[in-house]
């Protein structure tokens, strides 16, 4: 059996007993990278030397009897917007090509302390803006289940790398669905924690009030273990919650008996949802019912405004967060500009891709004099109503079930020139970010064309433990998460 068939926790156990070494595990990952990444193109940068050195250190720790924890020595990948000191960090953008991070972000420090070797940096939509990884300045990543299709985005590289077993687990970020949607399209597990659960310090910012870091793994226990490692209060992030995280593995197998699970009719009534997705997700909800949960119809009446709300709030914050990319202190500087204004304009025009420019323009407009009230402020008010919908629903149910994505993986090139069509990929995931809630996607089926389908579980603020437990209850009765993509070595 290839080491890469093991889950993170299973590998962790074998590393602990000495049955396998971390170096062997990293080599197994690198071997798959060599065999498959030419086709999948998940990686922007592979740090062979660094990962092996970190693995050797993990093996030494084990020999000395001072393992750092259950994941010590388990190789992971990082979406390329986590600043990793000494390594390039591009956020998928030409404007940061060549930028070498001068510091480690907090989450990266936590992973280093936990002993997980970092295999490399993973591809993404530029500045996390996109749902297909086609907006990467470098190249699109391909879905290991069907290389003609997209793995989703913006954490497409992370999803593909985990699905293709090139890493045991990965971290992504989710602003409007960028962990959950690629997880669903790539057949893996992905969690967006409650806003404030995980530090954002050292994560290239897209939309400050929406961004969250989360784990992407092949099963729910791994997801819980990886979340445990990063769910730590950070004094360097003023939006980081001061509370200590509970033990996410402790109640994981507790099941769903007695839980009330809401089915929001606005989600299930969406026109344009792929019928196979609908069928698969509905079957999943009935499976949970068989396991002892009560399904309760709920209404989240402001759902239809979530897309518009998101596409005003997120670009507005992004337009401000991306102002620092001006060619002055780091990153790309356009050549031959004779004066400052020309330098700014050309640098940003050359350095940013079309989608980023579009959102920066939209956000700038939404904040500009005369439009702030009608656009940005209005959207922030509707956001409150969307939050309130969930608060109301959670009075009668413990969690909400929904599809993650309205469609399975789509062909690369199919939607990229129609922004509005691309934005519709996120209709089910956006509200959760606007409300700051935890959201999980677990594999719940496949289409006839063998493309993965994901079930989404949304929970109350800080209730990751329950959300994971619901996902696990479903997962252990099925084996969707154990299927492997049909990749053939080049």
């Amino acid at each position, binding site marked *: 059996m290839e080491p890469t068939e093991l889950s993170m926790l299973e590998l962790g156990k074998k590393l602990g007993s000495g049955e396998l070494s971390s170096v062997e595990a990293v080599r197994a990952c690198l071997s798959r990278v060599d065999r498959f990444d030419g086709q999948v193109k998940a990686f922007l940068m592979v740090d062979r030397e660094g990962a092996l050195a970190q693995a050797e250190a993990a093996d030494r720790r084990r020999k000395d009897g001072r393992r750092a924890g259950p994941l010590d020595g388990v190789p992971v990948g990082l979406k390329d917007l986590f600043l990793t000191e000494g390594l390039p960090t591009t956020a998928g953008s030409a404007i940061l090509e060549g930028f070498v991070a001068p*510091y480690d972000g907090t989450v990266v420090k936590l992973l280093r302390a936990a002993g997980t070797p970092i295999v490399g940096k993973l591809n993404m939509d530029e500045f996390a803006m996109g749902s297909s990884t086609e907006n990467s300045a470098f190249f699109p990543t391909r879905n290991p289940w069907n290389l003609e299709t997209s793995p989703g985005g913006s954490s497409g590289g992370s999803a593909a790398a985990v699905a293709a077993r090139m890493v045991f687990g990965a971290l992504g970020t989710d602003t409007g669905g960028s962990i959950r949607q690629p997880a669903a399209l790539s057949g893996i597990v992905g969690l967006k924690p409650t806003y404030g659960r995980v530090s954002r310090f050292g994560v290239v910012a897209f939309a400050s009030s929406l961004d969250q870091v989360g784990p992407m793994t092949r099963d729910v226990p791994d997801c819980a273990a990886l979340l445990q490692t990063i769910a730590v209060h950070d004094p360097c992030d003023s939006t980081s919650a001061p509370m200590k995280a509970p033990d996410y593995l402790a109640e994981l197998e507790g099941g769903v008996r007695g839980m009330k699970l809401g089915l929001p009719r606005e989600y299930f009534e969406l026109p344009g949802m792929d019928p196979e997705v609908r069928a698969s997700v509905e079957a999943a909800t009935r499976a949970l019912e068989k396991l002892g949960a009560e399904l309760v119809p709920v209404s989240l009446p402001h759902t239809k405004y979530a897309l518009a709300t998101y596409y005003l709030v997120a670009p507005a914050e992004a337009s*401000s967060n991306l102002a620092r990319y001006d060619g002055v202190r780091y990153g790309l500087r356009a050549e031959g500009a004779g004066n400052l204004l020309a330098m700014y304009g050309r640098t940003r025009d050359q350095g940013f891709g079309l989608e980023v420019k579009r959102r920066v323009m939209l956000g700038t407009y939404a904040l*500009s004099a005369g439009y*702030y009230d009608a656009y940005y402020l209005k959207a922030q008010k509707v956001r409150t109503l969307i939050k309130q919908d969930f608060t109301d629903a959670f009075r009668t149910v413990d969690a909400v079930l929904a599809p993650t994505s309205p469609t399975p993986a789509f062909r690369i090139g199919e939607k990229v020139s129609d922004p509005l069509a691309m934005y519709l990929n996120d209709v089910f995931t956006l509200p959760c970010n606007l409300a700051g809630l935890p959201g999980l996607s677990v594999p719940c089926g496949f289409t006839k064309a063998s493309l993965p389908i994901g079930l989404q579980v949304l929970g109350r603020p800080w209730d990751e433990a329950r959300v994971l437990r619901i996902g696990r209850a479903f997962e252990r009765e099925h084996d969707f998460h154990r299927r492997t993509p049909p990749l053939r070595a080049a």
Partner: protein
Amino acid sequence: MSVADFQPVIGLEVHAQLLTRSKIFCGCSTEFGAPPNAHTCAVCLGMPGVLPVLNETVVEFAVRVGRALGCRINPVSIWARKNYFYPDLPKGYQISQYDQPLCEHGALEIDTDDGPRRVRILRIHLEEDAGKNVHDAGGGESLVDLNRSGVPLVEIVSEPDIRSSSEAAEYLKALRDILVYLGVNDGNLEEGSFRCDANVSVMRKGASQYGQRVELKNINSFRFVQKAIDYEIGRQVELIESGGRVAQETRLFDAVRGETRSMRSKEEAHDYRYFPEPDLPPLRIPAGYVERIERELPELPRAKLHRFVGTYGLPAYDAKILVGDRALADLFEKVQAVYKGPAKKLSNWFLGELLRLMKEEAREVGALRFTPPQFASLLEMVDAGELSNNAAKDVFAEMFRTGRSPREVAQEKGLIQVQDTGAVEAAVDAVLAANPGEVEKYRAGKKQVLGFLVGQVMKAMKGKGNPALVNAALRAKLGD
């Protein structure tokens, strides 16, 4: 042109750096004078992925300023992003406050030639300073130093209650003195830790509406404040009188030419697209916090000034100088508390010998070597006639340098005057006996020979005679 037909209307905006050790949102040092970019980190360089965390002492200092100026401290205030592009602004936005600032609605009382005037303070808010852009003389480049990026600032905005350039200067001096007294700012205009912009307009006397206001920037000394404002008032009046209209614009003061010039590039920069800063929760002031700060506020300059005039009976001139340096004023009071003589006498010594020596030796109050009782003692020796004024100055200089007691120094230098009336009389008798001619001249009406005789007695007593006693004894013996 008649400026007298017009009423100037002036509002002032002051940006004052706060004397915290570290910056407002990161731990870099705020110390002035380091090589370019020596005091920078990922946060104040605006690198990808960084986030701000508020320095607690910044809040304390700002609340001190707010209460010293009689402002209401808002229990909740909001951070905002002010978005614009400039090389000295690393994030492309400044974290500031817009709606809901920390402090509102206070006032500063100043003394003008026409009596006291109350200038209302509209608001005080917190923000981060930008770095420095220096135009390289040689190449066609600008050099950017971000040491100053992230230094904490309070912005103090007055209402347009000021009516002349001299009032403006008074306001700024008074404000600067308060900030220095509070220990939150070093009052240094030249180094840029206290910066002032003025909003100036004119209206015809008796008119009901304010005229168009113009913003003046780059005023970096008190002298320039008056010059810049006077020039601008004159410019606006002339413009209006010749049928023109004052444009809304920002102008720079050119100190070399003594005039204000329009800043062309600023027109479209004014859409700052303010929105609440998502990376910082609202600033919440805990219960009891403001009360504690208020209890710890020192006596402010103006109150101290009035007290020095009232309680010590000092002339305003003296009091102003003493109060100008809080430590100096404190020292004065410590000495006066043990000194049995009149405050004016002590004040003369402070304004004279003490300040002179402090300047010569470049020493501040905190580094003085002598104690208040020693100073009091010295003056008492003069009052008792044990030391002449000149001798006392000598003794003081030694005391200043070494911190030794005045009596010890005076004795060592043999400066203590003879008080013994018997000795004085004996000397007087001897001199009168030796100078019969002078005695006759004096008795004949030439009183000026007294001076000669006094000199002779002092010579005989080797300068140690108490002049007052010598004088009195001579006159008595001469039959006066």
